[in-house]
């Protein structure tokens, strides 16, 4: 099974660059122990304050500043994983620091 992990962070939390994450021992542990061999790709996203939401109405393209939904969380990253089943995906997601740091990780099956 392939899944995408969407890492979410609470709005207003400190924002760290990928380089800062690499130096964070919690992330380092996750990368070394959990991610190895199973994460097939992923990126870190800039926070919602840097986002632009694009909407199309008919043939008109509408842009707005920030995320479409006002929530206490924003989408902070995404990862693609390849595991046996949903239980393994959940276990993997739960190990990401975002899951226990006041944010959440959404596990979304990849449509193949």
């Amino acid at each position, binding site marked *: *099974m392939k899944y995408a992990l969407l890492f979410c962070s609470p709005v207003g939390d400190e924002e760290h660059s990928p380089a800062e994450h690499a130096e964070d021992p919690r992330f380092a542990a996750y990368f070394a122990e959990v991610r190895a061999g199973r994460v097939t790709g992923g990126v870190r996203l800039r926070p919602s304050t840097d986002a632009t939401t694009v909407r199309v109405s008919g043939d008109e393209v509408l842009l707005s500043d920030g995320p479409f939904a006002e929530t206490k969380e924003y989408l902070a990253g995404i990862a693609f994983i390849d595991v*046996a089943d949903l*239980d393994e995906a959940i276990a993997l997601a739960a190990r990401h620091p975002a899951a226990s740091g006041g944010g959440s990780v959404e*596990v979304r*099956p990849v449509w193949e």
Partner: protein
Amino acid sequence: MPDVEEAVAAAFREEWGQVVATLIRVTGDWDLAEECAQDAFAQALDRWRRDGVPRRPGAWLTTTARHRALDVLRREAVGAAKLREAAVLARDEGPYDPEYDGDDSGVQDDRLRLIFTCCHPALPIEARVALTLRTLAGLTTPEIARAFLIPEATMAQRLVRAKKKIRNAGIPYRVPPAHLLPERTTGVLGVVYLLFNEGYAATSGADLVRTNLCAEAIRLARVLARLMPDEPETLGLLALLLLHDARRRTRVDAAGELVTLEDQDRSAWDRAEIDEGTELLETALRRGRPGAYQIQAAIAACHTTAVTAEGTDWADIAALYGELARFVPSAVVRLNRAVAVGMSEGSDAGLALVAELEHEGDLAGYHLLPATRADLLRRSGRTKEAAAAYEQALELVENDAERRFLEKRLAECRSA
């Protein structure tokens, strides 16, 4: 031949979940599994009339359903891999042998697989309950819809969505591995308990289809207790359900009015259920691994084994609620403890605990909080304060039977 019809009906109750569970494993297709199981039961009516009831109806039904699945897959000429798997499994088992009386442990695992999959925490709780009733207990979609008082189309959609999620999200069809087993088992027991409570909350004759949920929950709890005999909480849950169910018929009078525990006709309680529940509880407690269901069963046993309401050991019950609060840290458990303390140590002790809960505010809006205060005040003769508390409770109560009960108490306090 009513005997054959009875045999098929009995086999349906006993074997439906088993047949579906095995067919899901073999075909990987939940809808096909249900369809083929239905077909096998329909065939059983004719064939058992002609050939007699087989010695092992479950094996006959599973084999018949499997052959049907093979036919369907072959005819549709899809899922070549599925077909190969089904063919291999059919060959391994060989033709149906009416004298075969061998080991069924592998097949038993299928039913556990099905239970754990239906109750997977990635599914919404309503979907878990509905799926368990449909695939494991064999209730029809209209029956489940009626039991939960929702339109049939809504229930059908709920079941379709749940099966779709199982397939698309990759929910595994298995008994969880050891490291997941404790929490998942708790989840499964929770679904069965919720099912029972849905039926138990039903009070009027019109709710008969809902009280049937109690029987289904007990049946499922029996299956779990048989399949997971080493888990004392499965025994604890079965004991709890039996001890509650023993009192079910005395909870409302002929007019549909609520009858409190102390006013219930104890001679009308179901002795057999009480005895079985008490025995199961003792077996569970001997394992030395107490849990929420065992403790709740112990509380229920305190009530059902007391010969009179006055003879109830409220000090024991208060201690058990204290213990329960360690496993289930909820304000409702503490409210129940307040009642028990009020009964054993006097109303003032109970009222002090109620006041604590009121101060904390977790139960704000919960009608049983003022209702409990009202009852403790009434018992200590402070009828005027009790009446005011009953009025508060009446502003919050939603269930009609409970409303009428509170109104009756309020009237008693006002005229005292």
